[in-house]
């Protein structure tokens, strides 16, 4: 039957390009022939001899009973087609085998073509639908051509089913992968939700076209809404504190008009309570510039705002306190001193020396109290006036301090030497000037009678610290007294010998600490001179937590 084989080749050629080979190329399709009549087998073999389908030949297996067929099916799970006689050891043996294959072995892709001599035993339509039969041949009509066509279409069907099966397997795998990805996503989403609730930061999206706002669980919590609530621009505005609405609208409109970022701090009303939130959102636009959607975050800054408010209040209170010192307390004191003086003058003729001295003590006391009030005021104000940080040539500031101190230095006849490496430093210039002035003035003031004061001012840079020391050959400090030095109104020397406000060193300590540094004193003891050392970080963190930038070029020099 050369024409049929040609036809088969033609069909094979047509489909080869479009289909995918599931078995290794060239491996034959396995076909099981099941018939209890041994004579039928050679007929079938003859009809299928040399047949190639999709470029692959056939490999035929023979079974003379349903039992043999089962064994063959077990040995060859990749059998593509079974040509099956319906009536064998029993009338239904063939159909029972079909049920076994479909139900017990659950083989869906193996094609089953029934061959029967008695059509009455298996009415075609019912059998085909009930038993998933793929073809039906009557023995009486068996011809090489019919067999070939039936086998050919069955193998094709098998092949399609296998392809579909493989696609399904692929799909199944992809679905599983997707499930795994979804799992990871779900986990990261739940992490996000947890992170949002820890950080008090919620997120939201806003679709401008639909005027729809979707809120994360945390955003809902901040706004006091049920999780999953959706909103609109108007419903958002309705929750903004009435006093803040115009500003919010203005900021929003400005972003819509020209911006890409919406950033605003405002209050919201959650029932009767007021919360502070910080809104921050990115706006994406269409190619023509139309705003499309916003992706934003809502941060609950209520606590921060309350802390700021508290700080403002306590600062205002301190300011009030300072003012009370500088005015309200000093005013009556001035009255005491002034009228004591007036009394002293008007009574001058009548007073004896002792009484005059009493007047003097009273007035001196008032004067000293006034000095202390002024000093206390200065001490309390330091660091609150907000002198900004700036780059300072420290060597220049020493000269400035010495200039201010010229009268005191001249009076003490002090010799002053300035040595070492003086860096450029990121500091509050006026405070550093004050620090140097106080230390040098002290060195000149606490001198020993009869000894010419020598003051050595030394600066060096080590491990990112600016170390400054002022050493003298003066009265020195008793070792047990070192701890008291830097406290307000502590004096180690009698007032009779050394005048002073009593806050000089306390101020120095405050300045050093305000710059994130420290101050300490060293002395071998009374009459042994003393040395005051200050160490300030050239870079790093200040006491208020702000980070200071390291100046690139000079910092290298500073490390030499």
């Amino acid at each position: 039957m050369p024409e049929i084989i040609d036809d088969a080749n033609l069909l094979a050629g047509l489909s080869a390009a479009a289909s995918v080979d599931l078995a290794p190329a060239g491996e034959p399709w396995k076909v099981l022939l099941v018939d209890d009549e041994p004579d039928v087998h050679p007929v079938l073999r003859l009809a299928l001899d040399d047949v190639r389908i999709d470029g692959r030949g056939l490999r035929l297996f023979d079974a003379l009973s349903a039992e043999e067929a089962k064994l063959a099916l077990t040995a060859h799970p990749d059998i593509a087609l079974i040509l099956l006689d319906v009536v064998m050891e029993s009338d239904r043996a063939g159909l029972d085998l079909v049920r076994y294959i479909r139900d017990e072995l659950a083989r869906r892709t193996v094609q089953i073509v029934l061959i029967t001599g008695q059509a009455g035993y298996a009415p075609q339509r019912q059998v085909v639908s009930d038993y998933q039969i793929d073809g039906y041949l009557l023995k009486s009509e068996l011809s090489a051509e019919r067999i070939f066509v039936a086998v050919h279409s069955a193998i094709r069907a098998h092949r399609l089913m296998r392809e579909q099966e493989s696609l399904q397997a692929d799909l199944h795998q992809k679905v599983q992968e997707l499930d795994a990805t979804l799992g990871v996503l779900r986990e990261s989403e739940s992490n996000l939700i947890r992170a949002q609730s820890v950080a008090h930061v919620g997120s939201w999206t806003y679709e401008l076209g639909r005027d729809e706002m979707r809120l994360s669980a945390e955003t809902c919590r901040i706004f006091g809404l049920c999780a999953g609530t959706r909103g609109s621009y108007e419903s958002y505005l309705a929750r903004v504190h009435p006093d803040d609405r115009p500003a919010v609208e203005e900021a929003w409109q400005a972003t819509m008009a020209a911006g890409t970022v919406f950033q605003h701090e405002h209050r919201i009303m959650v029932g009767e309570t007021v919360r502070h939130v910080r809104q921050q959102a990115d706006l994406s636009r269409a190619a023509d510039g139309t705003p499309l959607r916003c992706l934003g975050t809502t941060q609950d800054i209520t606590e921060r705002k309350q802390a700021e408010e508290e700080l403002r209040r306590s600062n205002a209170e301190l300011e009030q306190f300072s003012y009370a010192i500088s005015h309200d307390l000093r005013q009556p004191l001035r009255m005491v001193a002034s009228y004591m003086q007036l009394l002293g003058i008007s009574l001058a003729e009548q007073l004896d020396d002792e009484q005059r001295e009493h007047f003097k003590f009273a007035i001196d006391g008032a004067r000293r109290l006034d000095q202390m009030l002024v000093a206390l005021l200065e001490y309390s104000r330091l660091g609150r006036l907000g002198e900004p940080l700036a780059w300072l040539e420290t060597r220049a500031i020493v000269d400035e301090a010495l200039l201010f101190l010229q009268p005191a230095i001249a009076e003490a006849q002090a010799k002053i030497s300035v040595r070492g490496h003086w860096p450029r430093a990121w500091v509050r210039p006026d405070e550093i000037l004050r620090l140097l002035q106080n230390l040098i003035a002290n060195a000149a003031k606490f001198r020993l009678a009869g000894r010419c004061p020598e003051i050595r001012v030394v600066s060096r840079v080590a491990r990112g610290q600016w170390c400054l020391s002022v050493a003298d050959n003066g009265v020195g400090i008793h070792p047990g007294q070192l701890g008291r030095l830097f406290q307000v109104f502590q004096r180690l020397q009698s007032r009779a010998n050394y005048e002073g406000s009593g806050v000089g060193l306390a101020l120095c300590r405050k300045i050093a600490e305000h710059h994130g540094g420290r101050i300490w004193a060293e002395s071998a003891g009374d009459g042994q001179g003393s040395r005051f050392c200050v160490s300030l970080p050239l870079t790093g963190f200040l006491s208020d937590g702000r980070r200071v930038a390291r100046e690139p070029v000079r910092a290298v020099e500073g490390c030499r």
Partner: protein
Amino acid sequence: MIKKRSLPFVILLAEDEPADAHLLRLALTENRIRVDLQHVLDGREALEYLHRQGRRFALAVRPDLILVDLNMPRMNGREFLAAIKDDPALCDIPVVVLSTSEVDRDVRDSYRLGAAGYIAKPLDISEFIVEIRQLSDYWLSLVRLPENR
């Protein structure tokens, strides 16, 4: 027309503390400065004086100089400065602040509000007397400003 007067200089003092006001009188006397010192107790009274409001101030004379304390009840020195500098009829009268405060901010604020001078009253009466002499040397020797523009 500039009206020449042989009357002594008129100084309006706004000061709520009688003892402080008395010290100023003493300082003026001590310096032999002949002035007509009009004393009111706060900024609001000072404005009433300047606007000749009420029977008490119906015959008030326009002062050549105003001395004002910063801390006063009802209307303090800052508020008074702001009010008088806002009034075209009064803004030419020089106002010198007399205060106990040496706080930078008070000094700056006062000048910013248009004060012509700022005297931080010293604790020592003798220093105060010197301050007042300097004040009179400067302000009271200046040509008097026209009463009306």
